[in-house]
């Protein structure tokens, strides 16, 4: 399991052949290898057989409600921003069987659980995605009741992180403090370096398991120039057009009656895409199924969204019937009440909810508009404080 705080080996460098060897080594160890590849006009995270499956020469353009694959001249394998859906669908699948039971006389007998699936190797995990995984790990286990499914899949996973070389149009990880540099939660981290002379990967291990796999590649140590080139690429990715005042956004819950909620309600279709693609959204609903004869029953846990009516259904009806109350629930939970619940923001700034909202509603724009008055007041206040501090001296 990844988790050691810093890189524990010195950097090594290898080319595409080395990457192939890495994937082959993970497969040989019995991992189910998942990583980026092009499918259906986008980069998605799916099963990988070899490095040749990676999206060589593909990039993307992203803005609110719009995504387009683009061709890159440099042949980069990790030159896209991030996959359509994060690693959530692998670590926390959309449908999970909780148990199966068989009728047994007047009662029922619980059937033995299915054997666990092969451990996952995740290739190409971005910094914001590592942060999202850490947030979900907290949701599913930091309190009294750990979720054995999630924790088991994460504990057995092998994580190959790839630092971003450039940010996408909807990224704001820098504002949320989750990226683009990868600092923790990986077994191996890599930066892809491409210039006239070479196309290489500068890699370090972050765990004993990662170090062992890297050793097996017998790759040479990275030169200072490689390390400098890698650092320059990550610095470039930190320049992001989109931003969010995360501190101000944390106070969203203080503005339940802002007029902007009505405004966004006119645009929002309550389609739920934003919550589905958000790598930290964790809500599910429980569904019981039976066979026709009523002899066999199963209980499933399925992804749900706070944009559905059933989500807030209690005895007598649903609580959040208006669009504005559902939109407000989503971003207030994400940016504000998550702090009360889990001690941090629930947003890692990956930008997916902006790109994949069919009408391009932008969480940063909405949060900014709603907290603007309060932010201005706070800015005025701190100016005052600074002045009076000056006087005191």
């Amino acid at each position, binding site marked *: 399991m990844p988790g050691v705080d810093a890189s524990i080996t010195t950097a090594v460098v290898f080319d595409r052949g080395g990457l192939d060897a890495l994937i082959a080594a993970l497969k040989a160890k019995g991992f189910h290898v998942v990583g980026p590849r092009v499918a259906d006009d986008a980069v998605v995270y799916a099963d990988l057989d070899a490095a040749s499956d990676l999206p060589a020469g593909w990039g993307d353009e992203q803005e609110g409600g719009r995504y387009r694959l683009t061709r890159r001249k440099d042949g980069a394998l990790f030159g896209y921003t991030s996959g359509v859906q994060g690693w959530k669908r692998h670590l926390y699948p959309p449908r999970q069987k909780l148990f199966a039971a068989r009728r047994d006389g007047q009662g029922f007998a619980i059937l033995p659980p299915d054997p666990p699936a092969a451990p996952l190797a995740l290739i190409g995990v971005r910094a914001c995605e590592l942060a999202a995984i850490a947030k979900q790990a907290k949701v599913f286990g930091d309190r009294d009741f750990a979720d054995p499914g999630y924790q088991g899949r994460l504990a057995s996973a092998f994580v190959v992180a790839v630092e971003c070389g450039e940010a996408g149009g909807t990224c704001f990880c820098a504002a949320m403090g989750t990226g683009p540099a990868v600092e923790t939660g990986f077994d191996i981290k890599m930066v892809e370096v491409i210039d006239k002379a070479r196309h290489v990967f500068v890699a370090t291990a972050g765990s004993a398991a990662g170090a062992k796999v890297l050793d097996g590649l017998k790759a040479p140590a990275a030169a200072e120039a490689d390390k400098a080139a890698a650092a320059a690429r990550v610095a470039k990715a930190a320049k992001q057009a989109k931003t969010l005042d995360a501190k101000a956004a944390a106070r969203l819950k203080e503005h339940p009656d802002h007029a902007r909620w009505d405004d966004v309600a006119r645009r929002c279709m309550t*389609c739920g895409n934003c919550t589905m693609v958000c790598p930290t959204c964790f809500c599910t609903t429980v569904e*019981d199924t039976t066979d026709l004869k009523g002899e066999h029953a199963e209980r499933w846990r399925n992804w749900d969204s706070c944009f559905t009516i059933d989500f807030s259904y209690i005895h007598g009806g649903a609580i959040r019937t208006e669009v504005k109350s559902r939109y407000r629930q989503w971003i207030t939970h994400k940016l504000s009440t998550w702090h009360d619940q889990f001690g941090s923001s629930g947003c890692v700034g990956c930008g997916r909810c902006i790109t994949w909202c069919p009408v391009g509603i932008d969480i940063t724009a909405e949060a900014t508009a709603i907290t603007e008055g309060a932010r201005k007041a706070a800015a005025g206040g701190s100016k005052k404080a600074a002045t009076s501090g000056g006087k005191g001296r």
Partner: protein
Amino acid sequence: MARNKPKLAVWKFSSCDGCQLSLIDCEDELLAITEEVRISYFLEATRKVEKGPYDVSLVEGSITTPHDIKAIRDVRKQSKVLVTIGACATAGGIQALRNFRNVKEYIQCVYAHPEYIDTLTTSTAVSDHVPVDFELRGCPIDKHQLLEVLNATLNGRKPNIPHHSQCIECKQNNVVCRMVATGTPCLGPVTQAGCGTLCPRHDRGCYGCFGPMETPNTAALAAHLKELGASGRDVQRLFRSFNANAEAFRKESESHG
């Protein structure tokens, strides 16, 4: 546990038979169904007919003639549980396009002897005429949803039939959004899930055959479709298909053109 076999009836009104075919299309499961229920009335499958009352009636088709109105009331009287199946029965179907035009003129143009034609000026949902216990959407319905409703009814549990958007189903099924990734117009955000993401899975936008989802913001989608390049007429046509007479779609189509 032995159960009394409930009596099942399948009825047809104005429709193409496609939804009834979904039941026959269940093939393997159909045999299992016949072990659990008694098919008492299903002319599409068997000429053997048993008298009512019936435990469960599946009703296909819309109400388009004075005779239909009488007949559906009779079906309701004879049925403990009445489930309407398909866009015709739940919204009036494609034939509800007549609701936007002058039907008398049509009859004059089309028929040699218009005086023989006894029809209503509208095509409407079954629920506009009698109380309905459950509605199964789609043009045609999805056979898994049909099995689920029968299964749930037999086992006395709530059917797992969501009323949220098709988009949620797209994401659960790992289908990349056609509208965002390719700019294809899609009614999925305002359409009820349940088809198994048929169209987006095949690089098509959703045509809305499952009808409006629980809280459809059709105006927001229409505005976006126009941004993608659709004309008012295009938007009107998109909302005016299988579920043209479903209230949300009808109202939206009426504000474009």
